[in-house]
């Protein structure tokens, strides 16, 4: 499966990728973006590929374009329709969670997290997709 990880921290992108692999997901390719704008471009470039993305994980608090703006723009442009999006962030306040869900996020994981928590939140979404 292919995944897109969006986080302004290169360290955190690596940590998230490692957690996905520890969760037992067989990742054939991991696209990376350091903000929402880069992520949108990655989705536009990926549109129509025969082997589409299976999962998007995104931080919220990022420079240039944050994770909530990314979700809303993705929805408006109808990019990666039906692909589950999970927010991984230190921002766990209720208004942000509700805004993320209303903008199309299906899951929410707060940093710090364990690989088990990632597995518990992500695997059911992949099965349901």
């Amino acid at each position, binding site marked *: 499966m292919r995944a897109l990880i969006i986080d302004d921290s*290169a360290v955190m992108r690596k940590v998230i990728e490692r957690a996905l692999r520890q969760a037992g997901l067989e990742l054939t390719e991991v696209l990376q973006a350091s903000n929402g704008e880069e992520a949108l471009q990655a989705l536009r470039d990926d549109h129509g590929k025969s082997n589409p993305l299976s999962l998007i994980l995104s931080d919220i608090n990022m420079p240039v374009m944050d994770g909530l703006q990314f979700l809303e723009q993705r929805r408006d442009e109808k990019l990666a329709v039906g692909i589950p999006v999970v927010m991984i962030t230190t921002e766990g306040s209720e208004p942000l969670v509700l805004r993320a869900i209303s903008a199309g996020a299906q899951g929410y994981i707060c*940093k710090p997290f364990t690989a088990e928590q990632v597995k518990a939140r992500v695997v059911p979404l992949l099965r349901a997709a």
Partner: protein
Amino acid sequence: MQATENPTPHHEIVNRLDTAVSEVFEMMLERSCDPMDGDVNIVDGRIVARIQFTGAVSGECILYASPATAAVTAEALLGTASSEPADPMVDDAIGELCNMIAGGWKSKLEHPQAGCLISVPAVTREGLGALEGKFGTKFSRTYSFQGNVFGIVLAF
């Protein structure tokens, strides 16, 4: 923190910080990390990360460490060996560590303080000088994991 009718006791602020640090180290680095008594002077070439709180709480969380401690931290976070102290990933790791600790501390606050926003981390190797003096109330704490020492300042 902003003045309220019942300000949060000093020990409660520090307890929340200790718990946030412990959780980040156990969950993300798979290591235990404990508070130390007294201050430890980390001056030479230290890496400083800062997260700002705005809104219901106005203040900042500053984390500082020596390049050697920061390199060990990056290795533990990434699960890899031999990060060099000058590696940009080391600065990134310290920024994320500060981010997660500040976020964890914030998540333990009660309404309405928990509704404050946190900034993205700013990381510098130019010292704490430019960052000091902005806020009047400070809580300083030093921590150790496997003999590696770093400091955290919460200021409001």
